[in-house]
Every structure is written in C-alpha cells, then in structure tokens.
C-alpha cells in the first residue's frame, strides 16, 4: 500500500502557496504512480533485510573479535611492560650484602650492582637512595658510621661506572632497622646490607632493550 508521501504533500501545498503569489503559476508535478502490490517482492524484500542484518551482525562480530584481539594484545603488552617494569624495579632495588665489619663490595654484590647500571643509564631522571645497614653486633654508634661507609662504597661503585653523583643519596641506619630479628649468623648476614630505593623518576622508566 502506498500513500502520498508527506514530503510530496508539503511540496504540493508549498508550490500552491508560492504559485498564488506568482503571476504564472507552474503546474504542480504529478506524484509517481505507486508500484503494483506484489507478494513476491515483499518476500524478497524481507529476505534482503534478513541478509543485510546477518551481514551486519557478521561484520559487527568480526569487529568485536578484532577489538577483543587488540584488547588482549594490549593487555598482554601492558602485562609484559608491567613485568619488565617490575623486573627493572627489582633490579634497581635489589639489596647487596656485606661481610662482618666490612664495607667491601663482594663479587656477588658487584653482579647485583652491575644489573642496576643499564636502567640507571637509560633513565637519566632516576634518582636513588642507598641505605647502609649493619647487624646488631658491635657498638650501636660504630655501626652508624659503618652503615654510612657501606652505603658510600655502593655509591662509589655506581658512580665509578658513569652514574652521576648527584643522582645517588646515601644514608645510614646502622643497626636500627634489621630485616631479620634473629641473633643467629643467618639473620646477621641478612641485616648486613645495602638497600636501594627509587626516590624520583620511577613512574615512567624506560626499559632498555
């Protein structure tokens, strides 16, 4: 069933109205004849509509899938980045350990310190604080000075490998902040340490490839 379109009617009246103002009104165009009603064409139209909808659905599904793939990729990328960042932070904050009443950098400590170098080099904005700690043996007061010497030794090692002096602060906590409470050799050796903290520039560190 076909009705004259509302647009056509509006045109009709508008033309008539306009025509009334004009001396030579034009003949209003005759609306096209409605197509013949045909059941086959109705069905065909319905099929076409269904096909179009299916196609749209398929297209949307494919878009969704692509989006999901990309989100997954993004997630994995972020995860990898976070893992790399965490790994970097672990490397930069990895503690070193000292022998009793000594501040020498041991071979093991050298490896731990060397692992910090690429990150410190790639991130010029990174600042760290090295804190020196001792075990509970020895004089409380002497241990403050010993902790300072340990932190200074670690700083000297890094500075000697190109890290600017100004990016490294040192502090000593002597025997005041043990990580292990025991009074056995195992606890003591855990407490004789240098700790590394990022004090600035740690939010967007660049991971060196």
């Amino acid at each position, binding site marked *: 069933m076909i009705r004259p379109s509302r647009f056509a009617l509006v045109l009709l009246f508008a033309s008539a109205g306009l025509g009334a103002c004009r001396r030579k009104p034009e003949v209003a165009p005759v609306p096209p004849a409605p197509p013949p009603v045909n059941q086959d064409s109705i069905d065909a139209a319905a099929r076409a509509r269904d096909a179009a909808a299916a196609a749209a659905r398929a297209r949307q599904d494919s878009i969704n899938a692509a989006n999901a793939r990309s989100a997954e990729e993004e997630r994995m990328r972020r995860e990898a980045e976070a893992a790399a960042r965490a790994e970097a932070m672990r490397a930069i904050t990895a503690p070193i350990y000292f022998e009793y009443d000594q501040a020498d950098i041991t071979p093991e400590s050298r490896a731990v310190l060397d692992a910090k170098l690429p990150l410190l080099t790639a991130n010029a904005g990174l600042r760290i604080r090295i804190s020196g700690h001792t075990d509970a043996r020895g*004089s409380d007061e002497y241990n403050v*000075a010993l902790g300072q010497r340990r932190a200074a030794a670690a700083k000297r090692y890094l500075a000697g490998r190109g890290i600017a002096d100004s990016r490294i602060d040192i502090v000593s906590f002597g025997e005041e902040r043990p990580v292990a409470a025991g009074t056995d050799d195992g606890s003591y050796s855990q407490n004789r340490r240098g700790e590394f903290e990022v004090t600035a520039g740690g939010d967007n560190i660049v991971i060196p490839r």
Partner: protein
Amino acid sequence: MMPRLLTILVVGAFVAGYRVEAQDTTSRGVRIGLSYQPGMKPGVMVLPASWLNGDSVRAIIQRDLDYGDRVTVIPSADSGAALGRTPLNYPLFGRLGAAALVQLAPTASGIRATVHDVAKGRVLEQAEFRLPLVLATPEWRLAVHGVSDEIERWITGVRGIASTRILYVRDKQIRIVDSDGASDRTLAGGAAACFFTCASPAWHPGGRAVAYSVMTESGTRLAVRDLETNAVRWASSTPYSIAITPAFSRDGSVLAYAYGTENGTDIHTVPGLTAGQPRRVTIGRGSENINPSFSPDGRKIAFVSGRLGHPEVYITDADGTNVELLTQANVGEQAYRTSPDWSPDGRSIAYHAQIGGVFQIFTIGLRERVPRQLTSDASNEDPWWAPDSRHIVFTSTRSGVPQLVIMDVESGRVRQLSRGGGSRLGSWSPYLGTTPPTE
C-alpha cells in the same frame, strides 16, 4: 647561718678503730682483675627522722650513702625514740659499728643535717639545706640528693654523686633518670623531637644542655637541647651525612662529634653552645673515627678509629696532631675496642672490647697503659664515668635484656639503674646539686 647544737656534749670516748668487712652486695659479683682493699669504709647510721616526710628524706639519704660505696650504712630497727634521744649515747653507736651519725631535722625552708663523729663524741659538721616546697618532685629529690652528697663529703672528704642524673636511650627516645633510679622519664618534648631514632646523649658540663644525634630518613643530625627551655638547635644537619657521638669539653667551650659523608667519618669540633664553623680533627682517610672524649684539660681527645681495619681506641691532641694507638689486641681477643670515655680525674679511659663474641668493659690507665677488665657477666657496652671517677654506668644484658647498670670500679659492686628493657647508651651528668649550704 646556724649555731651549732650545744646540747650535744662529749659523752665519752670509745673505740676509734672499727672494721667493716667489704660486702659484695651483688649476687653477680664482677671482680675480675680488681684490687679491692676491704675494710676501709666507715659505718654510718642515719638516725630516725620521725617528722612528716622525714622518713622519705631519711630513706633517700640512706640509699644515697649506700650507693655512694664509700661508707657502710648501718640499718637501725629502732623506731627512733631511744636512738635519737639526746644526749646521744655515742658508745652505744660505736658498739653498733657506727663511726658517724647523721641527724636530720626539719626547718622552715628545708632540713638541717648534722653529722656526729662517734669516736670523738662530738658534732663533726652541720648545715641547713633549702628544699623545694613541693615534695617528691624531681627537683625536690635532687635537692635531697644534694644533702646526701654534702653529708658524704663531711664523712669521707669526697663529695657524693647522688645529685646527678643519667641520660640514656630507650624506644628511640632520650630519657633521663636520677642516679638512684627514681624520676625516670622521657625528656620533655622528647616524643616530638625524637620522632626518628635519637641516640648518644651527652651532657654539657653546665648540666643545662644535652647534645644527641637524631637519625632521620635523610641522614643523622646533631641536636643541642636546652634542658630548661627545651629549645633545640642543630649543631650539624647536612643532608645525607651523619653527625653522631657528641661530647663536650670539660669547660663546655667545645663540642666534638663524628661527622661522616661519602668520604669517611672524622672527628670534628664546633663551639660548645653557639653556632660556628666545624673544624676537622682526625684524618681518617675514609675510615670510621667516632666517639670523641676530651681529657679534663681539653687538650687531648680519645676516640675510636677503624683505620687499621678494626675499631681501636686512639688518643690525639685536640688539634689533630700526635695520634697514638691506646689499645691493642691481646692474644685471644678479637680486635674490636670502642666507646672510650675519659675519666673526669684524667687518669684512665673506660671502653668496651669484644671477647668471645660478647663485649666487656675495660679501663686502661693513661700512665701504665695496662687494660683492666671490669665485667665478665653477659655482654656489657658503652661505659660512661660518673663525676667521681669511681662509678661507671654501662649497658648490660646480664638480666636478659639490655639494661643500664652502675658499677663501683673499686669494689666491683653493681646495681641495675634502669627498669625498662632495651635501655642503652647511658651518659652520666656532672654534679647537678643546687647551691651548697651556706654557713
């Protein structure tokens, strides 16, 4: 000025000689290497004081005389009436072992103390002492301790050390306690000032100021606090450095401390109570140089140095010249000697050394240079001399946890001073007694 009591007359002479065996009143006697001559401590009886608060005053004075270790306090079970009756029965007191009697009486502004010489049967000394009006405050107790110290001087010729206090560290705070263990408290405003770990308190010889270190997240600073106003001044506060182990010269004009950077820790000095440029004393070449302690004349400084790879005690002229090693490892000892404190009489230096994995207190005479071990029970650290150069306070684990302990180095007698576990780093004050009695 008070007239002598004339009612006390010579009743009769009695035996002048008496002997009291030296008593090791501690069950944990530490007598290693001591040469203690027993039998020379005069017996002293403090007569009952039955007026209001008289008992408290008497109890404090009795305990002070006992803790002074120069006299033997003879207890009297008598309630007072008979013993205190005048004229005093000197022969009776002589038979009880008393060489001196202490008589206490209230006055309008405080108390009058009288010491009787039993052998001679007469008054030896007498004076009036002003006491604060409010009883049992730290100030009141300090004034009573001052009476004890004067009584001890009358009897022995040497002033007592009761009117002194000890600064120490517990729970990161600087605390202060009377020499008899009373009035134990955190320094006023201490909690705010010691938000971080405070340590190593040291008295200004005037008794009015204290220096101590404050460990912060950005280094350890050195504070000088006025004990009356509680005003704090930073004697050293350079970030990411350490300024630790302060010590004043005997005249208070110089403050020495250890200042450490990335290039080692060395002894420095600044003016005692005013701002001034630090002067470096030691040249440690990257080693630890800490724990300065002045000789009484201020011309020399004992200190610890790790310059040989392990801490040992050295002496230097105050200008940094003439450095000499004072302590040396003996066979069987570990090379770890630290925390020297120069005795006020200048004759010896106390320190602690590692033996068998723990620490023990030693003294070493400046003349003969022979170390003498004072302790052997548990671990003992950080000795500090009393102004009488006879007692030391140190940290000891003999009770199971670190506590402050006082030792009479002549007899080896020890007593526990602190009551809270984890007490450490004691520092004995100069005489804090109020003005001596006028007479």
